């Protein structure tokens, strides 16, 4: 693999302008002062209780995501391109979803193959012909972006179901401002603190027609044992809305109510962090105790808005992802500003045979997988793992896509042996309301803490960094 591009030191070891002040500051700051701040940050995270539950890990039911105190910096110019590209992409995603569940022009135009939609387990026939308020499907999108050189950003994944991580974006900034006021004074960092306000106004704007002028918004969580529970409670708190579980809600005459100390209160918009499958035991999994019986009929009656809409999984399917450039062109008539990572669709025989021949060079991902589970990283895998994966691939080729192992950019990161480059990605959060798409300047930078590792997922031991968008 080629040597990765370093965001601070550049391709040829020349300090990049956005990092000039940071580099100077790092030179002035003794290593033990940095280490002291790192420990302080960890203590703060623990005391505030910013934790992440790891499934199947009984030892550490609640784990801290390691936080790296060296910020990742993106220049205003770079951000302007990203912002434009992200908005374009999310607009297209929303149009695609509306089309898939209504006219299906894109299928008739043979741009996306039918069976990719209709045989997909995340496709929701219940949503066929169902209108959603203001035609917004993906109210909150988390688009994963990687960088391979000074000029090129690639979209790695579109998270259109229930993307998480935004609480880290906000808390990382809070803690950095507390620990490094001096460093902030030397930069002009665009603030991210408006996110909760923007999220609330986006959610309010998509209230159903029958809602009052002050629609009631609630955040629905699977409960304290969910891995992202901290984020759910954090957001509900920042938005000033109730954090509800399924058992707090009840459907009567196709309207949704929450049980309060003053009796039942109608809920108009639900920012749900519960997967489709668990929303309503009458429609989806009957064994789910997390959901609300009748929620889907209230939804169908147009009395409640679900954000994100039901059935958006079809847009963050990794096989559909490979068609995103065509999808953008089809709906917007524009060239996509952000590129896809080149992707082989194993469902296509020619691609499959290429992938099988080059397994040791490729990253192979499950089409419906998430969180870094069930993937093969060819260059880092043993022969036996590769062979086992080869069998899986042959058995069920349509379940996989493959991508080249990209030389993800690196960022200086605190490690046991001092500052060292570590691979990073970026997840900005794109909000769509009734008539606007917004992004706060920033996102969540995830960093692979192990030397050479490309896996940044928190469930796989990745960490996070504060992400600075410079304002000039």
């Amino acid at each position, binding site marked *: 693999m080629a040597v990765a591009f370093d965001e601070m030191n550049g391709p040829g070891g020349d300090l990049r302008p956005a990092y000039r002040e940071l580099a100077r500051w790092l030179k002035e700051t003794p290593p033990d002062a940095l280490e002291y701040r790192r420990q302080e940050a960890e203590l703060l995270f*623990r*005391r*505030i*209780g910013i934790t992440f539950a790891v499934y199947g890990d009984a030892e550490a039911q609640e784990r801290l995501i390691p936080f790296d105190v060296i910020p990742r910096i993106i220049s205003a110019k770079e951000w302007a391109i990203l912002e434009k590209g992200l908005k374009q992409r999310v607009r297209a995603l929303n149009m695609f979803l509306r089309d898939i569940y209504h006219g299906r022009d894109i299928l008739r135009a043979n741009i996306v193959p039918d069976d990719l939609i209709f045989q997909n387990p995340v496709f929701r026939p219940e949503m066929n012909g169902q209108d959603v308020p203001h035609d917004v499907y993906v109210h909150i999108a988390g688009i994963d972006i990687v960088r391979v050189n000074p000029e090129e950003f690639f979209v790695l994944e579109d998270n259109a179901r229930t993307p998480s991580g935004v609480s880290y974006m906000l808390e990382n900034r809070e803690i950095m401002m507390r620990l490094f006021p001096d460093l902030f004074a030397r930069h002009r960092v665009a603030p991210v603190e408006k996110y909760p306000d923007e999220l609330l106004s986006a959610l309010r704007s998509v209230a159903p027609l029958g809602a009052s002028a002050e629609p009631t918004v609630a955040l629905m969580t699977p*409960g*304290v044992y969910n891995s992202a*529970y901290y984020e759910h*409670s*954090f957001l*509900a*708190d920042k938005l000033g809305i*109730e*954090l*509800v*579980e399924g*058992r*707090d809600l009840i459907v009567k005459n196709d309207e949704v109510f*929450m*049980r*309060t*100390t*003053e009796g039942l209160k109608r809920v108009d918009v639900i920012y749900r962090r519960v997967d489709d499958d668990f929303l309503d035991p009458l429609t989806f999994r009957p064994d789910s105790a997390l959901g609300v019986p009748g929620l889907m009929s209230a939804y169908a009656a147009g009395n409640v808005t679900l954000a994100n809409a039901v059935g958006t999984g079809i847009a963050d399917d990794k096989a559909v992802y490979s068609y995103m450039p065509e999808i953008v062109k089809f709906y917007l008539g524009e060239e996509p500003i952000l590129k896809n990572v080149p992707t082989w669709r194993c469902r296509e025989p020619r691609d499959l045979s290429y992938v099988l021949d080059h397994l040791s060079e490729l990253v192979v991902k499950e089409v419906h997988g998430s969180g870094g589970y069930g993937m093969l990283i060819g260059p880092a895998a043993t022969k036996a793992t590769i062979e086992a994966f080869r069998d899986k691939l042959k058995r069920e080729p349509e379940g996989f896509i493959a991508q080249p192992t990209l030389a993800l950019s690196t960022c200086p990161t605190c490690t046991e042996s001092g500052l060292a480059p570590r691979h990073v990605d970026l997840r900005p959060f794109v909000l769509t309301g009734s008539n606007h798409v917004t992004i706060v300047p920033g996102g969540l930078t995830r960093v692979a803490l192990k030397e050479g590792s490309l896996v940044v997922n928190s469930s796989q031991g990745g960490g996070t960094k504060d992400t600075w968008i410079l304002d000039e």
Partner: protein
Amino acid sequence: MLSRTAENLYWLARYVERAEYLARTIEATLRVTALPNTYIGKTNEWDSALLTAGVSASFYEVYDEADEHNVVDYLSFSPSNPSSIKNCIENARLNSRSVRTALTSEMWDTINSAWIDLQEVWGKGTKTREELARFLRFVQETSLRFDGSAYRTMLRNDAYWFSRLGLHLERADNTARILDVKYHVLLPEEEHVGGPLDYYQWTSILRSVSALTAYHWVYRETLKPWLIADLLILNDSLPRSLASCYGNLVRNLDQIGVAYGRQGAAQRHARGVRNRLEHSHMDDIFQHGVHEFIQEFIADNSRLGEIITKQYLI
């Protein structure tokens, strides 16, 4: 607010209050048992500690004998005792997590820090009496911090009032329990009243509810059983007295009633109990039997808990 949120706040406050009461009980018992036999006689103070905590039956399912080691372990750390201090703090933290949006950051920080310390410092129990003393201090400080931060940082709205309801209901129950277990040493007709034995029993009662100094301020007398009973049952100025708890319960329920624009069985029942306390005199209570009076109170108090649950929390 969500019924579930109110319920969690209510129980959270109960758990914290209970943990503190248990810590006080252990501390007071340790003091009494440290005295020479001639001062305390042959009573088993550890047994009575189990009784006031209301866990005597479940204790004897696990242990044969109530001695310092067994009882301290059972009341403080035992995972099999659902209301051990450790379980109280763990439950309090679980409740806090599910109502984080209703807590101020100071309150969350108190509970979360206590829980972290419990895992890291106190997880394996205590070995020496010094360690135990530090642990008991830690529990009491946690409760003080929690209570103080609730008082100083919470908005005065239903979230605050429901958490106060839990606190005062639990506190009333604790005070009533210790009186019930010790009522026989308060009975004036007993022969040896006034001997050293009673004196140290009385101090231990007052210590358990943090009222020893208060007693002297209020009565300016040596310890007398009917005055102790008067202080803990009827004296409105002692925060842990039954009268004071019911003053607060009525007040908080009224505030909820006003905010919601309607009252119900909980308000009526609490007022009834308070009125009875207001119109009682120690003479009458002794006449009719302290034990009977307290038993009735404990039943009334737990009835209030049921009514509140039915009216607001489900």
